[in-house]
Every structure is written in structure tokens, then in C-alpha cells.
């Protein structure tokens, strides 16, 4: 965990991603890992606790139930160690879904987003979100499951909830301004959209 923290984006970098994602009107993040590491930590069946960068939920249309969202942010200028990091991220996403379903008795439908400023694993790019790739990653980190069998149906469900977003600084910079996003969200709230 100490190593993980040392590599983290700084406050400003995380908040930049937070604002960019929230300006899409689709997400609301309550904590950054700098605010509270425990609140951003995803537990796995073997007791491993993996701290991700942002904790929040989707902004639901009227009648929709907001779903929890975890985000890992990488503001890299090179590929760096993202390939291996992403594989662990996928394994944690699956293991955490298993753990939470077992512990609370229902699937909370948590989404997992990997947000990066630099693409990675480009030779395998088209496979990064497949069930097959997810299974490989889980198998690589099988210890997280603490002996539980891999469930193909759950693998397919979790794969649907993974997202990889590659952003450029320009893309972040052209997000809605605070006033514009505030105004848009004000009207969406009046229409019943809820975080």
C-alpha cells in the first residue's frame, strides 16, 4: 500500500480527473484517496484491501438506482507499469465483486474505471475489456479469491462494468466550466436526476 500511495497522482491531478468525470454529468465522487484511503479501498475475499483513487457513484436518471463507481487514475507520459497494474486492477474488480456479493447478499453493481493519460498494452488493446482477458487476470491473481471458484457468468457481468478511458490534457481542459456544469446539473436535478 505504501508503494501504491507513493505513485499516486497528487491532489490537483486527482481533482482534475474528478472534475472531468463529473462534468460528464454521469458521475459524482464523494472521496479521493487523499481524503480517505479507507473509503476508497476495495476488499477482496482473501483479506487484501486495494486502495483506488476515487470513490463515488453514477448519477442516475429519474428512477435509476445510482451504482457505486471506483476509479484508478494514471497521469503517465509513458506507458509505465500500466500493463501489469491494469491486470491487477481487473482481478481486484472481479474479486471485490465476489466479496461484496457474498458479504452483503446482493450484487451492488459497482463499476470500475481505469483513466489514463497514456495508452498501454496497445498490441492487446482490443482484448482489454473481454471476458477472456478478465479471466486471465483473475487467474494470475487467484489468491485474491481465497479458494473460491471462478464464476463464468459473474466474469461476463463484471467485464461489462469495466471501462478504460484514455484522455489527453486538451480533452480535460475543454470540459464544461464550473458555472456551466453547475447550471446543467442544477437543471438535471430539477428533472429528478440524483447522485
Amino acid at each position, binding site marked *: 500500500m505504501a508503494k501504491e500511495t507513493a505513485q499516486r497522482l497528487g*491532489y*490537483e491531478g*486527482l*481533482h482534475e480527473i*474528478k*472534475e472531468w468525470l*463529473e*462534468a460528464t454529468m454521469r458521475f*459524482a*465522487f*464523494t*472521496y*479521493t484517496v*487523499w*481524503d*480517505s484511503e*479507507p*473509503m476508497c479501498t476495495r476488499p477482496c475475499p482473501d483479506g487484501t484491501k486495494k486502495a483506488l483513487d476515487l*470513490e*463515488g*457513484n453514477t448519477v442516475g436518471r429519474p428512477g435509476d438506482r*445510482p451504482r*457505486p463507481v471506483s476509479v484508478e487514475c494514471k497521469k503517465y507520459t509513458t506507458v509505465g507499469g500500466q500493463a501489469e497494474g491494469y491486470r491487477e486492477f481487473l482481478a481486484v474488480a472481479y474479486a471485490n465483486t465476489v466479496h461484496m456479493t457474498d458479504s452483503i447478499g446482493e450484487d451492488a453493481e459497482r463499476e470500475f474505471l481505469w483513466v489514463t493519460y497514456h495508452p498501454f498494452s496497445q498490441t492487446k488493446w482490443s482484448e482489454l475489456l473481454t471476458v477472456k482477458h478478465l479471466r486471465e487476470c483473475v487467474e494470475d491473481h487467484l489468491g485474491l479469491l481465497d479458494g473460491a471458484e471462478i464464476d463464468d457468468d459473474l466474469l461476463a457481468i463484471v467485464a461489462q462494468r469495466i471501462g478504460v478511458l484514455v484522455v489527453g490534457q486538451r480533452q480535460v481542459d475543454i470540459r464544461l466550466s*464550473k458555472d456551466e*456544469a*453547475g447550471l446543467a*446539473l*442544477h437543471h438535471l*436535478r430539477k428533472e429528478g436526476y*440524483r*447522485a
Partner: protein
Amino acid sequence: MSTFTERISAALDTTDAREAGHRVHQVVAQEMRNLDPTATAEITGYFNHSYVPDLVMQWGKGRQAFDRPIFLRHSLRSSRASGDLDNFNRNDLPAFYLSLASAEPEEETRQVRAQANEHRGSRVLVTTVPALDDLTPTTQRPDPVLGLVRASIVRNAKGAIVESDVENLVLPRDRQIEQRELAAFSETVSSVFTEDAVLRINRVFGIVEQALADEPSVEALLLSGQLSETEIRELVPYLLSLQGVTRDRDFWTAVARLINLTDIEQMWSQFADLDLTPLASAASGLWRAKRVLMSLRSDAIGVEDFDRTPRWSAKGNLLAAEIGDWRLTFANKAQKMKIANRDLTPARWGDLLPSLEAYTVTAVDLRGLQTRSQYGAQESTQDMKQRVEAFIRTADDSFHLPSVTVATGVGDERSEITANFTEMMLDAKPDSDLETLARAALRILGYRHPTAEADLTALLAGTGLPQDEHEAKEAHGENVSDDHTENGDDPE
């Protein structure tokens, strides 16, 4: 009782981020309403969002409506990373940024303070939960200056309120204020409140100071405008129940000028069980009402040792004066006072006439056995008494008067007051001051049961009865009520 900091810490003590948000919103909304009960809090459901406030504080309706968004942040560092401090550059945002952290690094508070000092015109507020803790009253004893400071935080605070800034805003409760404390108070008030709040806080501070002075100086008070609802709530009940408060008429008149009868009616519950005499007597020439209901104090009739000291109080949601055996209840709008009686005994002209001597009678309603006539003057300055007298003398009928209308005052103060005997009600068009109405009610409506001029004088002066003289007259079997027509002032 736990502190704001402790309640926030307890609310955040969960592993569920959404639950933490729900709980924190409730605690903050409650704290804001405690600080300013005139505000309502809308909880948006968003927690620590970049663009959507957590709460929107709201005041007033229509054109008077004012909103202030409150953004909750986990720390001043997080607030800075969110770009909140950049908004000090703007003078059009009333945003309120509240850090939930129980402690902040010194460097962060230094940066917030520096930004705020560079942009003193900004209405943005950055503060912390522990900083606001010190505003919690430590005793039950009311303190209107602290009350107004507390209430002003939510709507009117700006700049940086961090660390122990609030200590400078809380003056010693014994009001033994040292020059150093006063200077710190004034400086902090000026830097953390908007201009209008600074004026209001200084005004209440000045009034409280003068209220306890041996010789109050009205010139020292800032006496323009009207007191806000918050000022009235914090200040006026305090003054009315303050031990050793001045009875100086000029002081109370100055306070009464900052209030009107509507305020008393709207905030009546603040005045329940309080003796309003110092204030309302001083206001009797200032506050205006449209309707007066006159009723006998049934509990006083026939009880010799009943305390008949004339006094003012709030009865229900209306201002009332008790004088002799009568209670006068005033309403600033006719619809606020329902007609309680309809069939009381009309007046007899001959009996009533002496009470009308001082008035210009502009209309009468004459009800005879066979006819009913209404006499009204073309001009409101025309006195109809002689015409009515002549008509009654020549008519072959016996008349009662359900109502009579008299004119009082001149110029802008001119008002026509209709006394309705079957309802025991006065209606003034336009409204008239309490003194004129009280005098008209007692003289005209109460003509069968006259009130001593000394009682009326005492009611309007806010003084007790001249007991010695009063009791002496009673001891000699003199009817103290009979002298009112001889000593009565001309109401015009």
C-alpha cells in the same frame, strides 16, 4: 451536548461513502438552521461534488428570495485542489465552502487567509467545522450580539473563518469588554461579514450597550432602517427581559422606530409572556393599526385587588393593551382580526354625544324603530354633530347608533375611524397610530364605562399609575374614572 466537530466525526464514522454523505448532510443542515432559524436548507444529495453544492440555504420568497450554496470538502487541502480558493477572485459568488476536517495544517489556513485578504470584496466564504464550534453558546443566557453574529454566519459571512477567528466574535458575557477585545471584535466583524451585516451587528451592539447605560445616548445608535427578523428575535425579547434595562423613553422610542406592528404580529411567539410596556408605550405614537377590538376583562370586574396597572402584551398573535377593565387588541390589517361580536348594544346618541365633543363626526348610522338612516358628510372635515342632533330632535322616532365615524389628525396623519358598537370594534381608514386608536376606543366605544385619563396617560407613557393619587381618590370615594372628559386632550 456534543460539538459540531464531534457530530461531524460521528457522521463520517462509517465505511459506506453514501451513508457518510447522508449523515453529514443532516448534521450540517441542522447546524445551519441552529445558527440561523430563518433559513431553510435544501439537501441536494450530492456529497463533495465539484459543481453541485451539498446544501442550498434559502431565505425569503419572490423578489426577496436569496440562496447560498454550501459545498462540503474533506479538508482545506481538498478545497484548494478543487479550485475553491480561485473563486475568491469573483465578487458574484456567495459560495460557502466548509471543510469537514477536525484539524488543518497551518500552511493551509495560511493560504486560505492570504487569498481572502487579497480579495476583500468577494462574498465567498471558506471555513471549517472546528472554527464554527466556538460560536456555540456556552450558557443559556441570551446574548443578542452573539445571536446575531451566529445567525449572520450562514447568510453574510465571507472571507476566511479559520482556526480561532471566532473567538474574536464572542464578547465576554458580563459585558466587561476591554478595549483590546473590542478592537479585535470590530476588526473581525468587518473582515468576515458583508457590509449590511456589519451595520446590523454594530447596531445591535450599540443598542445593547446603551440599554444598560445610566444615561443612554440615542445619538450613539445607528438608527436608520428597520430591524431584520433575526435582529428582532435576538434583541427585543432580550431587552424586554433584561435586568436593569433603562426605562429612558427616548431609548425605547428609538428602538420602536426600527420595528413595526407587523413585526410584532409575525413574531408574536417571541413576545409571549413578556411585558411589552416599555417598547409598545414608546411606540404608541409610531406604530399603526387598522383595527381595534375592545373587550371587557371579565377576570378584573368586581375584583378590588386586581392589578390594573396599564400594560402592553402580546395576546395570541396580536398586540394588546390592558387598561382599567378593558382590553384593547390591535391589528395592522383588518383581516387579521375576526369579528367576534355582532349583536352588542348600539349606542344612544344623547349618551354618546359628550364623548364625541373632541371629534369631527363625519358619519353616523341611525337605527330607529321605523326608519334607518345613514348620515355622511361630503367633506371629511365637515362635522355632522349638529345636523344629526337636529334630525333626531325633529324625527318622530327613537334612534340607536350601531356605528359612528370620526375624523382625526391632519394631512398625512388624517384618518377616519369608525366605531362599531354592535361589534365593539374600531376600523381606521387609513391606519392610525396606537395612541389615537386607544384614545378613540376608550372614549367612544367605551363611553358607558369611562376610563380615567390617568390610566390612559400611564398606558401611553409606559409608567405605573400614580398610585398615591389614585388610591387617595379611591379612599375618598371619588370616582376616578369620571375625570377623563374634563382632562382629556384634544385628539386632533
